[in-house]
């Protein structure tokens, strides 16, 4: 198919425009973080670094970032374990009820967050009698993070095929040796991509978090939401947002470099 030059230019223009629309609001956040005025009016009234200085010494924001990092790390580790096991089972075996299991993994992410949130908090507090807190939050996050790892592992296993593993078994390696020396090294970048997505997903989640965390645990999104409408705090929220955007560049770049197939790192981007 030869695409005419006009079509190419048109498509490039549309893509450029979409990118501009995608980044303009983010740029606005950066501008607002230096704006002297706290009102949302344009154009900005003046330049100040006051919000940056205040954010640098804001203990609430710092604690929230640390809480979010810990929660996201724990949820990611759980999701990596469960997602890998599930990916191996689903890709290497066929069994009764496979489609149901597939649906089951997708459901926590496909159903609206408020449904997942209210269902989990109800189950934790009224059925199981567990106090809502750090533990319930990690469990809830891990539940909807499994799918990102699962999808990445499954796609990689499908591409790998079973030849190398069979060769390893023929050469006398036991199952564990084969997994450790043959399967796992090939899965490594898929696990990294899936893990990063799981981490990002957990780090940014607010709706399930509101229901599953209870009052004692303040993750960064919870902190942002409570400070969004507080006078004097909104500009500090902007600063925190800018820092988060900048910090996130590194892991994305890494994930891209490590996955040779660019389409793979976009699986289950959720």
């Amino acid at each position: 198919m030869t695409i005419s030059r006009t079509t190419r230019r048109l498509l490039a223009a549309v893509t450029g425009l979409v990118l501009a629309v995608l980044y303009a609001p983010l740029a606005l956040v950066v501008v607002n973080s230096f704006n002297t005025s706290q009102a949302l009016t344009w154009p900005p009234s003046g330049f100040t670094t006051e919000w940056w200085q205040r954010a640098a010494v804001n203990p609430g924001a710092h604690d929230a970032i640390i809480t979010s990092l810990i929660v996201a790390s724990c949820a990611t580790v759980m999701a990596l374990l469960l997602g890998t096991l599930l990916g191996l089972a689903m890709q290497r075996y066929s069994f009764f009820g496979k489609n149901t299991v597939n649906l089951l993994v997708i459901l926590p992410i496909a159903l609206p967050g408020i449904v997942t949130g209210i269902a989990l908090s109800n189950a934790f507090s009224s059925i199981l009698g567990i106090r809502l807190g750090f533990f319930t939050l990690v469990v809830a996050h891990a539940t909807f993070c499994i799918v990102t790892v699962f999808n990445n592992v499954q796609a990689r296993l499908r591409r790998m095929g079973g030849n190398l593993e069979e060769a390893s078994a023929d050469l006398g390696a036991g199952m564990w040796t084969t997994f450790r020396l043959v399967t796992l090294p090939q899965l490594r970048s898929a696990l990294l991509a899936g893990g990063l997505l799981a981490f990002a997903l957990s780090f940014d989640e607010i709706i399930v978090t509101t229901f599953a965390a209870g009052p004692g645990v303040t993750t960064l999104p919870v902190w942002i939401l409570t400070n969004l409408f507080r006078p004097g705090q909104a500009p500090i929220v902007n600063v925190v947002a800018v820092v988060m955007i900048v910090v996130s560049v590194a892991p994305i770049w890494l994930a891209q470099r490590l996955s040779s197939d660019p389409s793979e790192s976009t699986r289950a981007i959720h």
Partner: protein
Amino acid sequence: MTLSSISSTLSRRPGIRLGLLLAAPLTWLVLVYVVALAALLVTAFWTIDSFTNELERTFTLDNVREITSEALYRTVTLRTLGVALLVTLIDCAIALPVGFYMAKVASRRSRHLLVIAFLMPLWASYLVKALAWRSLLSNGGLLDWAGGLVGLGTPGFGVTAIVLTQAYIWLPYVILPVYAAYERVPDSLLDAAGDLGARPARTFRTVVLPLVVPGLVAGSIFSFSLTMGDYITVNIVGGANQMLGNLVYINSGSNLPLAAAIALIPIAVIMIYLALVRRTGALENL
């Protein structure tokens, strides 16, 4: 039993192997998620005592009756469905040309950069994006200012603002699976169609598009379902308008059975949607 004898037993028994692999994740998903969903379903048919606010565990259809008879729920359900469909349509309409450009027109080098460019906004906090749109759309905000130059104003906070903001927030979730689907279409197919005399438009319609549909549907599951359940963006840019998520949220503290019953609406809608799209193979493309 030594490690090697366990290993050799396992290699002779694929059933046990499968059982060991599935045990942990399935226990987790069933114990945590299926039980929780089932409990929510049951709660929808309970009620609370209007005097003591205590949960009454007796079966009743009162909540379902209230939801089906009161106009408020019908209005909000229709509004939520409308917004979710509109957001999904907008995002699909943008993702189709952009994904095509990324996968099939752009050079290899710029393709990598484009993927990164579309991945990055995913990492910017969801709340921050909603906040950015609040600032964009506010009276005297950037849109008002820019619109004023050409004689237009901001749409203000309301349903239009909800649609714009949601379409913006979920766009990368649609573009990336669509791009991945385009990427999997072999170039040789396009060449073959061209060699057989099909014009680009026809090649796109009859060869490329059917292959991209699973990716498009996978993306639409995200945009549709995420919009269906959202209430926070609605609070930030929606003015006084409510969506189903708001009604669930408001009732979740005071009347859990009613909240659960309202939540059945999005659950039913999403389940129908998933059942409809299952045959396209979209669920494997998430």
